[in-house]
């Protein structure tokens, strides 16, 4: 793969030399990151997408980025600054940038914005997200099969639909694999704080959890799982391969590069239009990292079958019969959830304990 990209880059450079370079300003692409690019998880993968854009387009683009931008009012300042500095296309890569993105986009109608994991669009704001919950289904299955204490710990970041979808999806499949399973959810109230994430994992392990699922961005929960004996976990957003073969037994990998390249190309061609994109395992935006030997062969085979079924569309993770936590009916037998409900999911499914904080 690497040699192929090198070849392609080489070809591009050659083409750039052969043709008289058009006296055109490079397209300036901005990225706003919620954590540091070296977090080993969420932001790391977005930055890989940025590097892929640079590699693909060479001199045609100029990328700029800002790390560790707090969600909220500060983000608006950063976005304004980026737009003023001449960015043509800006990717805002966290849910909490939604309103700042919409606000700044209204002030700069000529700048294109792409907001990750949100649901608000406008003429110059697209949204894009990945169906991470498909990967959560796989994790739930493995977790349900492998837990001995029947207690699975889940570190949530913020109670937003994306995270709640993940908890529901993991729980449904864990329960299918093991009806006695119980989920303990801890809200860390942060996307990135290794010390706090490690503390959360430790608290869960002390209370009996032997599988830790995380929806925060650093590798700290895996480090905490490693310190305790016999606890497994999963890579989140990135492969986190350094914790293979255990505690990390598999992972969800976000692969943003094709999408980023696609959208930058659209801006270069002048064909960019506002859209809402939600891709999953089928389009490769969600990838499942290697299932290691720590997982029993039969469980790994079942997990792989599930990946295939989701990829070819024969199985949807949210398939009825499913009830909501309060016992009211949600999906009838065989019915699958529509994207609207999934996008705004704010309820637990039946069997989960605890309440979603407001």
């Amino acid at each position, binding site marked *: 793969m690497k040699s192929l990209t090198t070849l392609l880059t080489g070809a591009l450079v050659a083409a750039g030399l052969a043709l008289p370079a058009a006296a055109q300003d490079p397209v300036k692409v901005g990225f706003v990151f919620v954590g*540091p690019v*070296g*977090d080993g998880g969420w932001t790391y993968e977005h930055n890989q997408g940025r590097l892929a854009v640079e590699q693909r387009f060479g001199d045609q683009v100029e990328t700029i980025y800002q790390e560790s931008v707090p969600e909220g009012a500060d983000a608006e300042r950063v976005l304004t600054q980026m737009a003023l500095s001449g960015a043509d296309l800006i990717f805002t890569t966290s849910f909490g940038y939604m309103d700042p993105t919409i606000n700044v986009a209204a002030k700069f109608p000529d700048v294109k914005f792409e907001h990750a994991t949100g649901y608000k669009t406008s003429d110059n704001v697209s949204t894009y997200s990945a169906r991470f919950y498909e990967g959560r289904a796989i994790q739930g299955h493995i977790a349900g099969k492998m837990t001995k204490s029947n207690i699975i710990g889940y570190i949530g970041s913020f109670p937003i639909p994306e995270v709640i979808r993940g908890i529901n999806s993991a729980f449904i499949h864990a329960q299918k694999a093991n009806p006695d399973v119980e989920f303990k959810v801890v809200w860390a*109230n942060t996307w*990135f704080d290794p010390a706090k994430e*490690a503390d959360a994992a430790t608290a869960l392990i002390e*209370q009996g959890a032997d599988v830790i699922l995380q929806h925060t961005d650093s590798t700290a929960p895996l480090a905490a799982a490693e310190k305790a004996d016999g606890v497994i976990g999963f890579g989140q957003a990135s492969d986190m391969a350094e914790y293979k073969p255990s505690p990390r037994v598999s992972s969800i990998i976000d692969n943003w590069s094709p999408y980023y390249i696609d959208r930058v190309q659209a801006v270069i061609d002048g064909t960019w239009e506002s859209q809402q994109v939600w891709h999953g395992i089928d389009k490769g935006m969600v990838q499942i990292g290697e299932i290691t030997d720590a997982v029993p062969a039969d469980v790994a085979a079942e997990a792989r079958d599930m990946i295939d079924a989701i990829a070819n569309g024969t199985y949807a993770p949210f398939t009825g019969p499913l009830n909501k936590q309060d016992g009211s009916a949600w999906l009838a037998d065989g019915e699958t959830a529509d994207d609207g409900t999934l996008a705004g999911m704010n309820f637990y499914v039946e069997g989960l304990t605890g309440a979603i904080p407001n």
Partner: protein
Amino acid sequence: MAGISIELLLASLMVAATPILFAALGEMVVEKSGVLNLGVEGMMITGAICGFAVAVETGSPTLGFIGAALGGAGLSLIFAFLTQVLLSNQVATGLALTLFGLGFSALIGQGYVGIKPPATPDINFGAVSDIPFIGPVLLSHDVLVYLAIAMTAGVWAFLKFTRAGLILRAVGESHDAAHALGYKVVLIRSAAIVFGGALAGLGGAYVSLVRVPQWTEGMTAGAGWIALALVVFGAWRPWRVLLGAYLFGGITVLQLNLQAAGVRVPVELLSISPYLVTILVLVIMSSDRRRVAMNAPAALGRVFHASS
């Protein structure tokens, strides 16, 4: 409350409090000498990576912690040079130090992502650690936890009972008077700054070598700012700083444990409660003008030049 073990909770509280206790103690000494160094976060993160790198390269956590202290102290030397020799603004320089530390540590840390550091062993107290409750809570930790407590006692005794401590406080209260008496204000302050940097570095390394243990960019995630708040909370008194650190660390650990146990708690409220308490303490303190004057070093943040 079922499922929460008080013993484990208290034990992890002590661990959670240790990094901020180190950093806050160091900063307290710095502020006692009349210097406000807002670069604690930067020195902590530099200590975190220096300690991590040295521990990984040498395989010795002890050398790692020494390296961390040197790293933090080294960075603070820049601050000392800028503010004490070149008389730059302390607030601006401190903020710049934090930014520099974050970037600098990310640069050194490039090659250390995903590496596991050598484990820091817990002290073996032998049969004593089998005492119910006291054993698991107090006697199950690594040496740094105890060093932090010993440091608190040391700083307290130094400031209260020694001549050097008295001079340090004098410099912090009135640098002009101290100068007139022949004390070397710049030298004393620089020494305090370096001490503060070393302790901040130790605190940072505790995060990267024991508490997490791994290297991730920006991993101290604001602990330095909490340490700064702690100094004010503790009213520049070592034992109160210790109390504050355990309170801050305790609330963090407690809220995570309560959640894991399925107790319905307002997460946001618990997360902000340490800051609310700090604000409350500030309000109470400032309601009595004399008490403020007694607590805060009078020359805090003021630039000193021998000619003035």
